[in-house]
């Protein structure tokens, strides 16, 4: 008999653990629901197949892109990015204190702290779960048509996005430095700003730059509901079947988003490797 090198009396463990009845039923239900979801979403291969000529027709009518309104479109594109940048900055600034309140283990164990903790988590969750397009509609009603409504919508959406990730990154930092500062007599606030925030900074920077990229994409869509930026130009071009102008706008958006993503990546690396303070 060949020597397997295995200790005697020890059975070779199975590759998979056999699921229990409940677990097996849960898997079956999950697979069934995924199949139903495709059905519910109206998934149709034939529609894709027959939609091909229509797409080709659109592309042939959209090419070459129109350069007629390039200066006006450039101004609208700049406005789109300005909305994204301003909204992201406001959102990140507001997120920080909210995230400190919403991070588990950062506040003291008092009833007031618990109220602040629960309220801030609820607020962040509310900001995150309501889509930015809905916020844009709300702010168009509140502050009127234009880029300010879009900026506010992006800011609120950013609070929802960054607030959650900032809080989670602060919860995940190593506890040692905080303990060291507490032992030295530092206050809770000092400990947060000296030990927790610097340790979570890489995550803050990455999240903020992702938020800017996300906001740049969102700010295009927000224009469709009158919240400023180049989105409204795209809607008008499509409504008037001016596909050549629409193609120009689509390509401009593509270049903007690509630039923001590339610059964000460079900035992220530069900041993370930066000199200490």
């Amino acid at each position, binding site marked *: 008999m060949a020597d397997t090198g295995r200790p005697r009396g020890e059975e070779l463990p199975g590759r998979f653990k056999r699921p229990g009845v409940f677990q097996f039923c849960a898997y079956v239900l999950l697979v069934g629901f995924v199949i139903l979801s495709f059905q519910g979403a109206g998934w149709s291969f034939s529609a894709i197949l027959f939609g091909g000529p229509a797409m080709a027709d659109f592309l042939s009518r959209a090419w070459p892109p129109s350069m007629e309104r390039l200066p006006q479109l450039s101004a609208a594109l700049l406005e789109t990015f300005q909305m994204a940048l301003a909204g992201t900055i406001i959102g990140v600034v507001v997120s920080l204190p909210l995230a400190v309140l919403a991070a588990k283990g950062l506040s003291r164990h008092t009833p007031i702290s618990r109220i602040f903790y629960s309220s801030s988590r609820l607020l962040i969750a509310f900001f995150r779960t309501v889509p930015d397009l809905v916020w844009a509609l709300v702010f168009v009603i509140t502050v009127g048509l234009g880029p300010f409504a879009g900026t506010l919508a992006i800011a609120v959406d950013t609070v929802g996005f960054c607030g959650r990730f900032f809080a989670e990154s602060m919860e995940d930092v190593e506890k040692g430095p905080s303990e060291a500062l507490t*032992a030295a007599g530092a206050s809770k606030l000092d400990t947060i700003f000296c030990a927790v925030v610097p340790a979570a900074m890489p995550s803050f920077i990455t999240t903020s730059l992702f938020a800017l990229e996300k906001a740049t994409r969102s700010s295009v869509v927000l224009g469709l509901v009158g919240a400023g930026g180049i989105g409204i130009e795209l809607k008008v071009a499509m409504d008037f079947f001016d596909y050549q102008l629409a193609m120009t706008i689509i390509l401009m958006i593509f270049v903007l988003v690509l630039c923001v993503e590339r610059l964000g990546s460079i900035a992220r690396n530069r900041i993370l490797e930066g000199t200490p303070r």
Partner: protein
Amino acid sequence: MAQAQVQVTGVEAPVTISRTSTAESVRELSVSGLFKSFGKDKGILHGISFSVHRRESVALIGSNGAGKSTALRCALRLIEPDDGSVHLFDDEITSMQLSRLRKVRADVGFVFQKHNLVPRISALSNVLHGNLGRVGGMRGWSQLFASTALRERAMSCLDRVGLADQAMKRADQLSGGQSQRVAIARALMQEPRMIVADEPVASLDPIAGQEVMELFHQLTQEKGITLLFTSHNVEQALAYSDRVIAIRRGTIVLDAASNTLSLSDLSKHYG
């Protein structure tokens, strides 16, 4: 004054430490009947009592899980003890309000096994953090905002541990030995009456560990700082302490002057 001579091996060249005890009769730390458990059936400390006198160096030894680190943390209320009392300097701290406790903690430099420096920021800013118990707010957060006087004091602390030339290096780019030296400089920034060190050389190689213990030795002799440290290295425990306390399963099983003990007396408390 009691004198002790111990040879420390395990490093390239054996070092002979000659200690002169400068301990005074005043108690700096007095722990009485301390109990701590983490959940049911997880008792760590079972009513331990010990004291540390001014200018004394005390080594706390015991195997992993014996309760050494918990005892140190309970002594500063970094972990709340379940029962018992702790007198630190002139105050009973177990029932003390947090704001007052912070002032008491400011006089105790705590050095951790894993250094516990804040990564990504400079060694100088890390040292400045030692002063947060006295100067809080933005001026104490970073060397960017600190006063010139504070920056100079932090630099002199770094100079004392031989790392003035590394002041602007990121803490996470320092070696283990350098990190522990910065942690000691941070404790020195507190101008402490007492240093509590939890296995300060456990994560260092023998040479770096020896250097760190030597530094502690010099500081306690020069500045008259009281030292309480835990260690698994019985040679170092004997060489750098006036007194050794051994803990076994949350109970003190030995409390004796170092010059009355041999290595075999300490080794039997392991395993």
